């Protein structure tokens, strides 16, 4: 890319070592926010100082599902909605790994909604990054479980009348140990939340709101990706530790962002080891005790 003999500075984009560069430019539309969340994730990986051989990234299907294909980590592009079960298996087979599930709102909360609920209930040691663009992007803008009331979509031409999910509330109620929501406008905060998520043991749920200029914004006449970012900038309010009941989203209304939940619960593996040790005593050999990279 550059000659660096004269000046002793490395002239390379800090994201590039984390990407499969032969696959760029990527397929995301102009103004799509997913690439920005990837930037934040790579900054978090750099700051965490983790051994990248011990990080695996799992994605489902969809626009955000492409992230696994572009990241130069051990990555898996799984079937639709099944990113969390796949990641659970990966984590339990190799407890030394830090497994990150990077997927979209449709993949995680609609097709894989059941898995999200149960992985959070079990407190599986996974980090979930849910890029929420309020629609099914790749298939043409159908109504997703996160589409706010009143928003127009391909399958709701007169406006959506289905009550949407409040994803942080769902994750919190199911027992996630870390729940945060940031938008693509809050890049530094999002990178910090991802760093905290990488270091946290247990079920981490980070919702990253991202614009979809091609489908969601166009159908609702909301302008470009940058117009959505300006809306995030104007209407978002940082309330750390807010009650997740109150952080639901409305169409172009106020957005509550922040770190909502940060608590400690025994992970599934810890609970299993503790339970069987109580039951069987010395006979039981605990499984994967060095997991979590701590």
């Amino acid at each position, binding site marked *: 890319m*550059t000659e660096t003999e004269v*000046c002793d*500075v490395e*002239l390379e984009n800090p994201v590039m070592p984390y990407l499969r560069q032969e696959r*760029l430019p990527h397929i995301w539309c102009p103004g799509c926010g997913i690439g920005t969340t*990837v930037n934040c994730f790579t900054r978090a990986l750099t700051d965490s100082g983790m051994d990248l051989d011990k990080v695996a990234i799992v994605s489902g299907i969809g626009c955000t599902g492409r992230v696994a294909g572009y990241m130069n980590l051990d990555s898996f592009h799984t079937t639709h909605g099944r990113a969390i079960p796949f990641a659970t298996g990966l984590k339990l087979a190799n407890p030394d790994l830090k497994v990150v599930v990077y997927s979209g709102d449709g993949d995680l909360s609609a097709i894989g909604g059941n898995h999200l609920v149960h992985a959070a209930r079990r407190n599986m040691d996974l980090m979930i990054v849910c890029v929420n663009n309020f629609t099914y992007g790749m298939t043409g803008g159908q109504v997703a479980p996160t589409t706010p009331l009143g928003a127009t979509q391909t399958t709701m031409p007169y406006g959506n009348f289905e009550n949407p999910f409040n994803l942080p509330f769902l994750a919190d109620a199911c027992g996630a140990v870390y729940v945060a929501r940031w938008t693509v406008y809050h*890049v530094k905060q999002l990178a910090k939340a991802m760093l905290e998520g990488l270091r946290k043991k247990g079920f981490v749920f980070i919702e990253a709101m991202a614009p979809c200029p091609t489908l969601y914004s166009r159908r609702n006449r909301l302008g*470009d990706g*940058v117009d959505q970012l300006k809306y995030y900038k104007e209407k978002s309010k940082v309330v750390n530790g807010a009650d997740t009941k109150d952080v639901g989203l409305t169409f172009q209304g106020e957005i509550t962002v922040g770190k909502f939940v940060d608590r400690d619960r025994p992970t599934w593996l810890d609970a299993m080891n503790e339970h069987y040790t109580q039951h069987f005593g010395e006979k039981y050999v605990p499984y994967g005790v060095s997991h979590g990279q701590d």
Partner: protein
Amino acid sequence: MSDGEPVKKGKGTVFVKPEVCKGCSYCIDFCPAHCLEFSREFNRKGYHFPVLGRPEDCTGCDLCGLYCPDFAIFGMRFKDIEQRRQAAALAPQVPAGS
């Protein structure tokens, strides 16, 4: 750039890969120093890419690099303006960095 070099600003510059830019203008709209602007030229796909319109204002904070969804731009801060000039002269993808 006319009356002497400013001391604090101007130590940074940005590097752009025009061929992967999709012209979303995130970097231009959210640059804290407002030093980026659209180029007059097009890239191969017909998008206007960002150029450093006011290089004397760039602090090299790399917020453009953090925002860019296409990994097409990044900022870098140098020890002094001379080093920044050398680096900018070397990099082939810098449109207006000197």
